[in-house]
């Protein structure tokens, strides 16, 4: 019985191959976009984990030099002698033929926890590591070190991407940093009664474990990607839902017959579920493979974005990780279950003697459209409540969900309204028929049009957000990168001499003094700046109390970054304690995009009084001839060329990061729109077969098949146009939520919303083109439908 019933069920797909293709392709596309994004996320997270596991990043408290970038080894020895369980780390760039590698030296005997490559768990390798010199590298670094070092190079995939790990002694030798260290890792368990750190090592500052700012940034980036993946998946599931609903609707008579012939309902439902699970696994498998391709193409750009924006290293190559392909298959099965649950429920509830005539395939009859509209109103009201009273990233995404789902649910009602309006304006009989038929068509196409709405709105929203970010950021770069040259030196002793040289050669020199501190318990970089024309003319305030730079220059106020302002709740006019016993009013708030830490800016003079031992290691220089000054610095003064960076290069690099971000979002936009077009194509093709009874009377009454085909195409374009017109304001609202809520919650800054009408017009054109292309084939098929097929509609003999 099982096999006979299963064969009968499967025979439906054999006779409806297009429907089968639509279901498998829809599910595969949905899974591809989802698992592609998950693959990127899994790869990035594995890279962060590798960094944490092998380099100790973020896991433990650390001691860093208060000024300069190195710690003398004697300080480490003094701490160990005093009983402090600290472990030394030396980091530096090791030059290779085609760039450089981040070399990390550590002492495996004193490192806390499991900070070590997996391969080093082996005693023999540890012995080698300590005595003969071994360098552990990830696969992408192995070739770069070939012939560059004399030590044995061992490839270990658990090492952080782009890094090489070795014994501290070897690192000191390779980096030419004898008796110097970069930082000290503090073991979590320390003996009782230790002397205070600042007594033994006053030149060191303790940085708490977990770089929360960077974590939040990368997390939010991945959350954004996940949200995009989920949206694409939802669009794909619309296709699957549509095809499954139609298939089950068409199989109602078969189900009734099977039951009448003695197949128990439970067996039938179980077989249908099994059938769907098999399809989901096959389509999911195809989707995961496609997702791998998408991820492999996008990963280098995502890695560059993460490195450029957040300084997080991610391997640029993709590994086949079980967590993402399993999650891809799981979500394919879950998505199919979700898409089929309604249809299965209807089959389970269908009385055996119910009419077997296939009902119109509809999501929204008039009453249903009104019910969905009411549900949409509830969702919009919930969204408004969240917008007014809600806080937190999760609620910000809940607001997005309310907005998008609400708009999708309201779509059938809005389209019905628009079609009714057009119907009332129609003059000729043909146009009255056209609009009446369009109204009848709306329920069947609702799911595909909802997919188009979401895809277009996501396009508008994400593009607006990224473009607004770009406009703001370029403007921000112009403000901040006003100096033509930037100089960074390693040796603090060189600073006064270099400054004298620069002052003699350039009209304005901007030394940058900085220390890490905390303001209102928020980790903050405190800067001392030489207030001059550059600051006054270029730096713009998000909010200020007037004469801000004058007050800063006179030591009567500080300027803080937006991140610090938002996190500490300190705004213009409030006071900030910038040092023990020094509280100054805040004269203004400046933007500081891309920085997870807070910033506070005071005058150079006041900074030097507070931190007399800190010297500037960075200088901005204003000059009319950067090339000549650069020549003088390298040839006359003897500064290394690598210490000098020109403004144009920094800007070009920053913008290249954005271009890569655009590549990622652009690719996802195109893919989502393509999936929506595919949804329309599949809807029209599957609807075509059940629409003959509606079209045949119009043909019989005098409309040619060619005319019917043209009207079919026009109908799809009109419905797509109405949908995209609604998608633009929805996308703008999406962008507004992303910029004003999600961004603030995730990054700590708010971005202005810019409008790009040209872009939206182009997008609408693409959406219409996609809809027209999708409708072209079904329209051509209709125009070529043999009259005998149309006549069958009138035959009662069958």
């Amino acid at each position, binding site marked *: *019985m099982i096999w*006979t*019933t299963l*064969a*009968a069920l499967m*025979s*439906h797909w*054999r*006779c*409806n191959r297009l429907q089968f293709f639509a279901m498998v392709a829809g599910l595969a596309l949905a899974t591809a976009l989802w698992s592609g994004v998950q693959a990127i996320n899994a790869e990035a997270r594995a890279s962060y984990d590798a960094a944490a596991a092998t380099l100790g990043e973020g896991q433990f408290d650390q001691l860093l030099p208060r000024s300069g970038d190195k710690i003398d080894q004697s300080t480490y020895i003094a701490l160990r002698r005093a009983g402090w369980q600290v472990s030394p780390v030396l980091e530096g760039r090791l030059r290779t033929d085609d760039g450089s590698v981040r070399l990390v030296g550590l002492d495996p005997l004193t490192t806390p926890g499991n900070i070590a490559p997996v391969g080093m768990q082996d005693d023999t390798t540890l012995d080698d590591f300590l005595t003969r010199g071994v360098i552990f590298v990830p696969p992408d670094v192995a070739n770069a070190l070939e012939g560059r070092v004399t030590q044995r190079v061992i490839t270990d995939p658990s090492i952080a991407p782009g890094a090489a790990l070795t014994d501290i002694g070897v690192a000191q030798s390779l980096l030419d940093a004898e008796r110097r260290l970069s930082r000290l890792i503090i073991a979590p368990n320390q003996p009782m009664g230790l002397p205070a750190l600042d007594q033994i090592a006053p030149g060191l500052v303790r940085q708490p474990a977990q770089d929360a700012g960077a974590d939040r940034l990368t997390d939010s980036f991945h959350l954004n990607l996940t949200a995009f993946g989920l949206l694409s998946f939802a669009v794909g599931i619309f296709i699957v839902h549509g095809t499954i609903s139609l298939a089950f609707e068409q199989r109602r*008579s*078969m189900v*009734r*017959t*099977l*039951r*009448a*012939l*003695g*197949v*128990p*309902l*439970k067996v039938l439902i179980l077989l249908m579920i099994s059938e769907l699970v098999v399809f989901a696994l096959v389509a999911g498998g195809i989707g995961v493979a496609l997702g791998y391709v998408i991820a492999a193409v996008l990963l280098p750009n995502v890695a560059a974005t993460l490195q450029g924006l957040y300084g997080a290293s991610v391997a640029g190559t993709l590994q086949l990780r079980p967590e993402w392909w399993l999650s891809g298959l799981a979500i394919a099965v879950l998505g199919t279950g979700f898409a089929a649950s309604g249809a299965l429920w209807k089959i389970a509830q269908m009385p*055996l*003697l119910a009419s*077997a005539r296939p009902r119109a395939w509809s999501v929204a009859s008039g009453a249903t459209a009104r019910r969905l509209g009411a549900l949409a109103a509830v969702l919009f009201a919930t969204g408004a409540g969240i917008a007014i009273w809600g806080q937190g990233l999760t609620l910000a995404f809940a607001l997005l969900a309310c907005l998008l789902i609400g708009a999708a649910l309201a779509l059938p009602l809005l389209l019905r309204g628009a079609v009714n309006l057009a119907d009332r304006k129609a003059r000729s009989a043909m146009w009255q028929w056209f609009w009446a038929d369009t109204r009848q068509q709306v329920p069947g196409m609702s799911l595909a049009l909802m997919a188009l709405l979401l895809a277009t709105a996501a396009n508008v929203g994400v593009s607006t957000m990224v473009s607004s970010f770009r406009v703001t950021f370029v403007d921000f770069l112009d403000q901040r990168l006003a100096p033509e040259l930037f100089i960074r030196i390693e040796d603090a002793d060189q600073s006064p001499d270099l400054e004298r040289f620069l002052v003699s050669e350039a009209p304005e020199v901007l030394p940058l003094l900085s220390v890490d501190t905390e303001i209102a318990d928020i980790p903050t970089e405190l800067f001392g700046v030489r207030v001059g024309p550059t600051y006054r003319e270029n730096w713009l305030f998000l909010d200020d109390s007037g004469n801000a730079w004058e007050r800063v220059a006179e030591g009567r106020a500080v300027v803080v970054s937006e991140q610090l302002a938002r996190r500490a709740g300190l705004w213009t006019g409030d006071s900030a304690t910038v040092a023990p016993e020094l509280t100054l009013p805040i004269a203004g708030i400046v933007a500081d995009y891309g920085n997870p830490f807070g910033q506070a800016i005071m005058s150079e003079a006041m900074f030097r009084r507070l931190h007399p031992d800190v010297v500037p290691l960075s200088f901005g220089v204003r000059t009319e001839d950067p090339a000549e000054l650069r020549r003088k610095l390298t040839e006359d003064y003897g500064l290394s060329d690598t210490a000098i960076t020109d403004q144009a290069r920094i800007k070009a690099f920053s913008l290249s990061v954005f271009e890569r971000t655009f590549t990622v979002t652009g690719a996802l936009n195109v893919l989502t729109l393509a999936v929506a077009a595919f949804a329309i194509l599949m809807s029209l093709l599957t609807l075509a077969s059940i629409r003959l009874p509606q079209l045949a009377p119009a043909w019989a009454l005098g409309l040619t098949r060619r005319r019917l085909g043209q009207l079919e195409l026009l109908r799809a374009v009109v419905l797509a146009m109405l949908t995209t017109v609604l998608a633009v304001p929805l996308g703008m609202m999406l962008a507004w939520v992303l910029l004003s809520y999600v961004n603030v919650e995730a990054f700590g800054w708010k971005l202005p919303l810019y409008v790009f009408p040209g872009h939206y017009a182009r997008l609408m054109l693409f959406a219409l083109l996609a809809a027209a292309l999708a409708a072209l084939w079904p329209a051509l098929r209709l125009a070529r439908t043999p009259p005998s097929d149309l006549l069958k509609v009138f035959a009662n*003999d*069958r």
Partner: protein
Amino acid sequence: MVLSVQNVKKSFPGAEGPVPVLRGVSLVLERGETLALTGESGSGKSTLLHLIGGLDRVDEGSITVGGREVTTMSDTERADLRRSDVGVIFQQFNLIPSLSVQANIAFQARLAGSYDENHAKQLSEALGLSDHLVKYPEALSGGQQQRVAIARTLTARPKLVLADEPTGNLDEATASEVLGQMLGLVRETGAALLMVTHSQSVARRMERHVHLSQGHVV
């Protein structure tokens, strides 16, 4: 005795309370017997047939098929009854459109696990379907489709054949031909036949005739 119906009552919900359709119907049918069930529209003919076939449940009364009490059976047991002991022929044919004629004919016998290829072949020949076995139902005329439905039912060798106006959708000549073939084949297999019909001419070709009126046998 293949079928025994005793004092069966059935009503359906209506706008002003339950509407009685069967008000205590009783009848019996012996092996090999053919019986026509006639009556005006709404007299409860099809309802009685559905109740006998286990497609619906009685409010009161008893129905036994081959000695098995139908009214107390679970859904699964009633499905088993339809698979093995009862064959139902519908007015609308109810073929599976995605299966070939041959697969449709074999279908119920395969479900019951009693498929006999020679028997199916004989029935196909007797019903004039041999040339259409590889076709799909949509390629057949109404009369041919009903022949396929008859072959499907008889291939499973049911004890009782229930036919709900099997020729109602066919023209007079075709209906007469199909009916003749069906009666001949039912007699050959030794099954009992209960046929719902509006047509007196069809009823006259049955051995027995029961008329239902307002839910009663008259």
